[in-house]
């Protein structure tokens, strides 16, 4: 990239200052590029909305998905009535409970099953349980736990647990054997090795697992609410709107769900990047 083409050659000297100017110019260009990208994306969304709004009735099934204008007004009325915030709060609460329980259980089981006894005891059982279509368990959990939030949470736990289980197992398998021997040689016991080596080196896998588990948890929870809507949540709103044939409201709820999942993913991704930068993973040869 020649930055001086077409201009009067500048005197050399003060290379440091020149360097700084180049860096800031680069940074500004990067900012401009980012703005352009955002602009294009907004434009694409606008075009999509315009087509959705203006397309003839035969092309867009209005009764099922509404139009942007009716979706917006449904969104507004759901927001104003408090139905949407309440449902969102309830859904997220179940998801948070389930993510915490699922992560702790999955990691604990994963660690246990990496020990000889655990592998012998749990190996086949875990593989069998993993093969169960989790959504089918909602009936079992309702019978076991009643029409309570706990049955929803149990369903979501049964889904996310395996994600963490296999992530930590992979982390343990990929732990550097030389580092392991080095720590053991320093007199580290099992627990110390776990705390100082295995868990920290499994952080990328666990963050990755969270990125997979979170949308899965949201999906499972909404399914549980659709199937067992007594605990009101986003799924309950979806069920209500489909029962009242209100496609616009259903679209509004789905869009909110998508935006929540997308926002959480952005946050998680920045955590992954933070860890990558901290450890230089992928940079170190």
């Amino acid at each position, binding site marked *: 990239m020649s930055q001086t083409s077409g201009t009067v050659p500048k005197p050399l000297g003060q290379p440091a200052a020149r360097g700084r100017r180049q860096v800031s110019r680069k940074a500004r260009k990067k900012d401009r590029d980012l703005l352009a990208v955002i602009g294009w994306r907004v434009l694409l969304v606008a075009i999509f909305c315009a087509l959705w709004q203006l397309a003839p009735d035969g092309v867009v099934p209005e009764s099922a998905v509404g139009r942007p204008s009716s979706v917006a007004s449904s969104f507004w009325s759901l927001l104003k009535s408090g139905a949407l915030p309440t449902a969102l709060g309830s859904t997220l609460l179940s998801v948070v409970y389930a993510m915490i329980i699922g992560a702790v259980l999955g990691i604990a089981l994963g660690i246990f099953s990496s020990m000889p006894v655990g592998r012998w005891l749990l190996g086949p059982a875990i593989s069998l349980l993993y093969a169960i279509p989790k959504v089918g368990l909602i009936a079992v959990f309702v019978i076991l736990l009643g029409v309570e939030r706990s049955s929803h949470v149990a369903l979501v736990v049964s889904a996310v647990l395996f994600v963490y289980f296999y992530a930590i197992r992979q982390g343990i398998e990929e732990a550097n054997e*030389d580092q392991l*021997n080095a*720590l*053991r040689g320093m*007199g580290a016991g099992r627990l110390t090795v776990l705390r100082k080596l295995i868990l920290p*080196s499994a*952080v990328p896998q666990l963050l990755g697992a969270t990125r997979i588990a979170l949308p899965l948890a949201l999906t499972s929870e909404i399914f549980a609410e659709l199937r067992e809507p007594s605990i009101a949540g986003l799924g309950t709103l979806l069920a209500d709107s489909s029962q009242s044939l209100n496609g616009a409201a259903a679209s509004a709820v789905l869009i909110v769900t998508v935006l929540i999942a997308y926002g959480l993913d952005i946050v998680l991704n920045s955590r992954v990047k933070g*860890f990558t930068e901290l*450890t230089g993973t992928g940079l170190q040869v």
Partner: protein
Amino acid sequence: MRLGQRGEPSALQLGAERPQGAGAENSLGTSSGHAVEASGVEFGYGELPVVSNLDLKIPAGEIYVILGPSGCGKSTVLNMIAGTIKPTGGDLTCFGSPITDLNRRVSYMTQRDTLLAWRNSLDNAALPLEIKHVPKQERHDAARHVLNRVGLNGFDDYRPHQLSGGMRSRLSLARALLGEADIFLMDEPFAAVDALSRLKLQQLVVDVWLETRKTIIYVTHDLYEAIALGHRIAVMTARPARVRLEQPVEGPESRDIADFKGTDTAQHLYGVLWNALAGELGE
């Protein structure tokens, strides 16, 4: 052929009370305790022998260099001494007791360093003390001291990926110094470092040895490195590894490594070692 004769009066006892005079004595002594002894040690994967009929007597408190062609099984020998793999035959002892499990008396610097990527230099160096539950302030003070010793002062907050290869080697050495190992195993620790830094690191190894008088078992395929560091150099055969020649070297106590490499003694040793090694390369 063995040049290292047994039964000579030991010049190099374990203690540090030895005079550090200018190249005073030849450190040929073997009569005092052996750090590592191997007799008839075998190792192989199934039918494939990697180490065969290995006899070694590594005197305590010396720098013992194992020199051999690439892939001859040098690292395997170190791994057996470290206890990460078990010999398939023969006897291998460390300070008289057989090595049955991970050897806690050694600190192992592998070819690829074992620093923890998420820790800064200070916490990496302090790890051995942290494992022994030394209070934070105390272990950080100790870590700063050794970081200073290996020339890493001012790099406390750097993580391994922010350090050069040579600096990572220094950090590994600093961490080893805070361990309680009696033997340092070094497997081509400076292979990935540029020539100038390597020279400085070799000098550092000699200096550290002078201060600690620990046994250092150093594996290399670099003739000059072997001559520069070793009190004793074992030339290995091509696979399966055996000792072809054991060559004593005038101890590097007062040695300036850069100068020593140019001396007649060094040139002569180079010839001897090369003759032994060349036979193994041609096959």
